[in-house]
């Protein structure tokens, strides 16, 4: 298979790195070679945050080449507009889904999980791997609620 390139972007404190970690683990549990790259240091201080996630048979570069993003998950309008130029011509911009989710989800700390549910519809990773990845990251913290939000967004994960 060809390598899948996913860009997560937004600002510090939105749970972007957490979301990218879960998606990366889910891909690893499904047997893919995973590379995930992000820059730490300023993330907790409201600065821009981006995480590049790539998975496939064998992944070389840890960062996505400009214009090669297959799926873009933005959690902020400004960051979305700044980064959209990285999206592939036939890539999928999930920002409209985020805008909808932002209206629907009252407790903002579950927004990242909701967006993972949306993303999962496009990736074909197994439900078991997503659940295992969420357990790894969230431990017991609101795990049932996170499953619920994920499933709600996903509709029917195969």
């Amino acid at each position, binding site marked *: 298979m060809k390598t899948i390139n996913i860009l997560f972007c937004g*600002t*510090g*404190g939105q749970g972007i790195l957490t979301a990218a*970690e879960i998606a*990366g*683990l889910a891909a*690893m549990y499904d047997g893919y*070679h*995973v*590379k*995930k*790259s*992000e*820059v*730490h*240091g*300023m993330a*907790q*201080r*409201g*600065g*821009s945050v981006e995480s590049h996630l790539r998975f496939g048979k064998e992944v*070389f*570069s*840890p*960062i*996505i*080449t*400009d*214009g090669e993003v297959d799926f873009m998950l933005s959690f902020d309008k*400004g*960051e979305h507009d*700044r980064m959209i130029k990285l999206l592939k011509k036939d890539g999928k911009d999930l920002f409209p889904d985020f805008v909808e989710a932002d209206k629907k989800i009252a407790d*903002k700390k579950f927004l990242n999980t909701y967006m993972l549910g949306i993303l999962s519809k496009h990736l074909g990773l197994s439900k078991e791997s997503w659940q295992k990845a969420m357990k790894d990251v969230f431990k017991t913290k609101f795990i049932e609620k996170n499953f619920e939000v994920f499933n709600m967004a996903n509709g029917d994960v195969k």
Partner: protein
Amino acid sequence: MNTKTFKLLSGNEALAQGAYEAGLKFAGSYPGTPATEILEYLTQFKEVDAQWAVNEKVAFEVALGASFAGVRSIYSSKHVGINVAMDPLMTAAYSGINAGFVIVTADDPGLHSSQNEQDNRLIAKFAKIPLLEPSSPSEAKKFIKLAFEISEQFDTPVLFRMTTRVAHTKENVEIEQRHEIENKIFEKNPHKYVMVPANAYKKHILLEEKLLKLQDYSEKTELNKIELKDKEIGFVTDSVTYLYVKETYPDASVLKLGMAFPFPDKKIKEFSAAVKKIIVAEENEPFIEEHLLQIGIKCTGKHYTYRVGELKPENIKDIVENKPKTQYPGGSRRPVLCPGCPHRAVFVALRKTKVIVSGDIGCYTLGSLPPLAALHTTICMGASITIFDSLSKVLGNDKVVAVIGDSTFVHSGVTGLINAAYNKAKGLIIILDNGTTAMTGAQPNPSTGITAKNEQTKKLDLEILCKACGADNVEVIDSSCKSIEEKIKEYTSQDKLSVLIVRYALCKMIDRTKKAAPLLNSEKCKKCYMCVSVDCPAIVKDENGNIKLNVNLCAGCNVCVEMCKFGGLVKNN
């Protein structure tokens, strides 16, 4: 039977896991992005004495001492941290080691969170020690084991260079068994361990011979590998740039230097004879390119403008065509102090007093950015007090204030304070004591009384220390704007050397509890925007010029309320 276990590990974690598996028993470091997670990962192992040191020089020497004592040992820091440790590093190359000793430098091409982007590959050549460079987390784990073997085989420290992209990339990494190594015996040997001129002269002769042997190893090792494919273009490359080359030119021939120094000259010549055109692809300095030119290899390196910043996969084509760099980073949101950060009140007070502020390295360096703009010099760790020393003498001690964090003060501010007292400097030094090393993710330090392994230990008493250094006044206060402003005026007007320790409630990185957000009364707001000038992410001006308070972000510190003269913002008790 035995199934393999894989984890998604960062380069730093994989390096640490590999060192652990190689029988590591000591690790010394000082926190700094992008190196911090190496030591943090090692604290989980009971077999490893993992320590945060006071500074990098101390970390290096304690780690070298562990090698002398007979156990495998590792030093790690960010690239500029190596500068602090250069004194022991240069001479450790002469003395050599006992048990395996690896020096990890985590470079930061692109200055994601550093004051410069120096290329520490040059240190290998300068210090005459071998250089290993992984391109990925899985290589970091594999190479670190080889680094210990090379160290012991050739009696030398090994420089192990990570970059931000290698350190902070995560990849599937296999977890393997730890391999216990028997301690080496320490034998009294002044010719080796006492680097006085007569001994060091002989050691230098041996060091030059050692480099020839290391070069021979460099020729034979798999760390330097030729991948012959299409012979039109041959890339000579290292570190993460290798992966960008593979991404962009999957069919090109490549010489990948995992051990760039000493250079494998024969292998380089063999490769250059096999391909039509040699392109050198490397980040920052033309380290490899200059060597190829020196040994007479015709090659194309990157345009000099690409010495600035990190490379991206899309830049490799430009390098092949020797085109200049056209894209520079920009447009991203700048970082700000956390909502509720206790530093904010201090910088609001400093801004009001209009003094020149000599600053240092830490979260509070963010106080230099507008609209706070209340910090006017930052060079390196500890330089706030030393630069203040001269600024106050030349410009007047009522016009200058130094600010430094608790961890930075212990790192190298204390020597500046002793010097200031000894050389009769006057004026005010403020220690911003938030009880942690916040900028790198809240690590403990000697003034917190907690070790890297989260154990209780002796707690450094900053008040007694400052008095012992020779400060005339030492006072501890909490952080509210008004009291800080008064204290700044009081101490800058005296002809004395004063240390004001602003001791905070816990840093927001550790204590996420919040107080009630203030109440916003838009009818009373006169749109003077003084509240916005405290530079808090929780209170902003919207596109219509109205004040917006984000109660989800607000921590209830009320610094913005102190700025409001019109009752537009009031405390919510």
